[in-house]
């Protein structure tokens, strides 16, 4: 088509469409970077809904493991001192999920002395991935610190944070980002399950690990629905898919859709060792600095 026609169409469409008010507000480079990230990740159009995924929270995964006897082990969570070394967008988003799972693990095990540091780390990352608005309320941090030591209150604060995050995600069409966050949280939850199981609780924990594997296909599909996959998230998606395929091939889980209790999930020692190794490898790759 003639360039003049294209130009004419564009101009006339712009005039009729009123392309919005020009803003004179100066934004910092950091804010601009956040906006770019949000725009990049946001889906186009408010109800362009091809396939939607409903994934659990890090807190629920943590509470399920904890109810099965998972104990607290010092030093297995990702150290908050690593936070400044996550440079790429994907590293920041994935480790936001990792630290969220760690915070749930710490709180559910009554380790409140470490909880504030983990929440602050999550807050630092939230600013960098465009989720700062969720944590900007001073009241939230104060409420969190006031609740330390009271298990029920602190869990309620965690639930509030989760709810606010979910609402923020929905209002800003950031579902793609939340799938990557969940991937980080899921891998960390599994890692903690692998690392903190012992002779005493191994039967229960392995049942829970296998149960968690049943939502892996949802996670893989969710990640693949993302149109803006970075190279490292694409690799993670491939690795998770490989893990899912390994699980699907296990003879002992052919009828896992129909079982009545997580205790009925079976996995041989060899397969559990193989699964654990894959989880540890994945987690190492996500958290390495």
């Amino acid at each position, binding site marked *: 088509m*003639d360039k*003049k*026609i294209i130009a*004419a*169409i564009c101009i*006339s*469409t712009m005039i*009729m*469409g009123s392309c919005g008010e020009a803003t004179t507000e100066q934004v910092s480079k950091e804010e601009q970077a956040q906006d770019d990230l949000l725009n990049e990740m946001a889906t186009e159009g*408010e*109800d362009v*809904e091809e396939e*939607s*995924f*409903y*994934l*659990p*929270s890090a*807190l*629920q995964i943590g*509470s*399920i493991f904890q*109810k099965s006897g998972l104990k607290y082990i010092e030093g297995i969570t990702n150290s908050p001192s690593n936070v400044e070394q996550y440079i790429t967008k994907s590293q920041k988003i994935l480790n936001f999920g990792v630290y969220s799972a760690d915070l749930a693990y710490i709180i559910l095990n009554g380790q409140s002395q470490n909880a504030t540091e983990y929440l602050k780390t999550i807050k630092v990352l939230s600013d960098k991935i465009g989720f700062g608005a969720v944590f900007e309320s001073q009241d939230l941090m104060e409420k969190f610190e006031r609740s330390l030591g009271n298990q029920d209150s602190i*869990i309620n604060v965690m*639930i509030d944070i*989760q*709810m606010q995050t*979910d*609402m923020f995600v*929905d209002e800003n069409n950031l579902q793609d980002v939340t799938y990557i966050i969940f991937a980080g949280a899921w891998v960390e939850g599994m890692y903690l399950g692998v690392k903190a199981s012992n002779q005493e609780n191994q039967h229960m924990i392995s049942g829970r690990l296998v*149960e968690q594997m*049943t*939502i892996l296909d*949802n996670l893989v599909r969710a990640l693949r629905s993302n149109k803006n996959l970075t190279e490292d998230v694409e690799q993670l998606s491939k690795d998770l898919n490989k893990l899912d395929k390994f699980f699907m091939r296990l003879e002992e889980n052919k009828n*896992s*859709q*129909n*079982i*009545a*209790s*997580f205790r009925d999930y079976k996995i041989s020692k060899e397969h559990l060792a193989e699964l654990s190794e894959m989880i540890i490898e994945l987690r190492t790759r996500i958290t390495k600095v």
Partner: protein
Amino acid sequence: MRNLFLVIALSISTLAIQAQTVRNSCKWDDAVKKKCKGDLKPFHYYAFKITKITFSNKSQFKEVEVPLFHDANYRFVFNTEGLHQDIKIEIYDKPASNSSRKKIYDGTSHERHFVYDPPKSATHNRIYIDYIIPASSNTDASVIDKGCIIFYSGFKN
């Protein structure tokens, strides 16, 4: 000259598209959030989902797959105040693609706000919520009707 006609035609069609009015009934204000959150108690918040609907001249079907964990109890809260036209809500143990699936719940959005606790026997590691959306009752082609269903879920170990 032909080119000029093309410009005018495209401009008119752009105007026609812009002349369509969107009537969005989706209601997700603080009152709705508070009501949903309140009705989850004593369950802990698990996740929420807003299913956005654009009514058209054809009926539509949307399915939400909810992963669940064994040995936990769940509560579902539905709010359909954001719909100006009723839809059907059905819950199944398996997806629509599975012919042997069992229906666990059958209702309509007419109730506007309701709580449903799925029986433990029906909840294994997945549950499927189907929204059956009829064709738009609106006969005015210049108006596009939109709405939403708000779904909250809670869990108790």
